[in-house]
């Protein structure tokens, strides 16, 4: 059962945990993200001596468990990060997770791309529209995206060629992707 569950996507696991009260599915989901949760929480544990990992992690898991049943979760990674930051930033306040408009736009496009994978006509249409959006993007962003995604250049190559730090490069890439998504969506609405 555990083996089968590990092959399921986050979305399916979440829906199982919700609809069938499947504790195993929930456990598999938590297990999948446990190492990231630990890695993200470790700086806090090191900086604040009053935090006990034996208390922090169970409490975090409890919060995640409670919010899993009630909240809308588009992306598990964003949700986990939000809960973790909320718990460590303001432990007394339980801020509900709500994905941003941009995040939902991105998710929508990702879903469209996923669906188009099996449909040639849709895929062709999508490619045309994406290229149009890419052409309307400013030159820098367009060049960066082209290099990173189309020419398969790594972070290291790009930092070397542009002289930017890895973090800045990542931020720029993310921003460019966001702009592209916005253009694509507007294009869709205009159509």
């Amino acid at each position, binding site marked *: 059962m555990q083996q089968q569950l590990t092959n399921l996507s986050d979305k399916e696991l979440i829906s199982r945990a919700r609809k069938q009260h499947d504790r195993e599915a929930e456990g598999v989901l938590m297990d999948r993200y*446990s190492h990231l949760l630990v890695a*993200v929480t470790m700086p806090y544990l090191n900086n604040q001596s009053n935090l006990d990992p034996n208390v922090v992690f169970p409490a975090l*898991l409890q919060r995640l468990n409670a919010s899993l049943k009630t909240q809308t979760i588009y992306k598990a990674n964003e949700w986990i990060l939000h809960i973790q930051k909320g718990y460590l930033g303001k432990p007394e306040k339980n801020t509900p997770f709500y994905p941003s408009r941009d995040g939902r736009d991105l998710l929508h496009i990702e879903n469209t*791309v996923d669906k188009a994978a099996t449909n040639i006509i849709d895929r062709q249409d999508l490619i045309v529209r994406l290229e149009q959006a890419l052409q309307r993007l400013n030159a820098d962003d367009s060049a960066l995206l082209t290099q990173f995604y189309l020419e398969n250049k790594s972070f290291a190559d790009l930092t070397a060629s542009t002289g930017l730090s890895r973090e800045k490069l*990542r931020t720029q890439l993310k921003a460019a*992707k966001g702009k592209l*998504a916005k253009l694509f969506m507007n294009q869709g609405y205009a159509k």
Partner: protein
Amino acid sequence: MLSNKPNNEKVLKIFSSIRCLSKDQLPRYMEGRLTDVERHLVEQHLTDCDLCYDALQALEKQDNTDQYHDLTGKLQRYVQNSIQPVSHVHKVAQYTRKEKNKEHMLVYFWIAAFIGLGVGSVYVLRGHMRNQPPIRFMAASVPPVDSARENVATNVPVVTPTPAATHEVAATPVIAAKTETPLKPAVTPVHPDSAAIKKAAALKALQKKHVADSIHKQALLQKQADSLKKEAADKASQKDKDKTEDKKPDPKPETAAAPKEKEKAPDPEPAKRESTAINSDEYLYKAAMVYQQQGNLSEAIDRYRRIESVSSGKYVEMARYQLAICYRSKGQMGKARRMFKEVIRMDGSLKNSAQQALDGM
């Protein structure tokens, strides 16, 4: 066109979703032990995913990853433990506990059911007994065994005279009223006085106690009555007309025999007044019915009146009802109506028929 196609396909990569880094991918990426394709995928994901990028940065800042591995292992074990399915033994224990609970509930249910049943039956029994007062009354009024035996012994003579006696006694006033003017004044003292009847009855009771063989006495008395009857008949036949003769055989002897009848007729009543009350009522009632059927309404009315005044229970109601019918057939609608109303007020078994009769009037 052909050269463009792979590029075109790659555009989709910008928006393809990639899973978060797995446990072994993260350290391998840090150490540069990934293939080009894999690294590119990881970097694509790192662009989007804050969680993975933050984790990567946090790990890169750490000198050694021992704490990370240790904590991850602990957390994973904790998660595993918390989702561990319930053991078989535990399940069995839970099942047996549930079954036991069920049994307990069943026992409680049956106890409650039996208690309810018992209380219900007691209640019903009490209600039943309350709704049958005459039976209790009669049972209570039944004399002790000895007297009861005596009753049985004397029942034959006691009962037989009653109809005749009541008949005669009851008949007397009517006849007196009727024959008063044409007949001799000797008839007048024959008026049915219940007190006198009672006295006579008491006397008779005393007599009964003394005289064991009441049948003989009865025969004697009847003989006397017969002789008196003959005398009275002779006297009456002289003055009475043919139409009155129809009723003579019955009432005449009574008028004559009245003085003696008074002693004899109601005698059983005080002794066993309670037990024979219903019997005498019944006879009175039947006699009245006979008169009514014969068309002698005033006699019938008189008897019904008597029943109404003396007896109790259903005969009063029946007598009143019949009285009302008599009045109605006599044309005394006011009285008839009043009687029907009384019957309705009594709220007995004849209520409906009385109501119907009243409506029909």
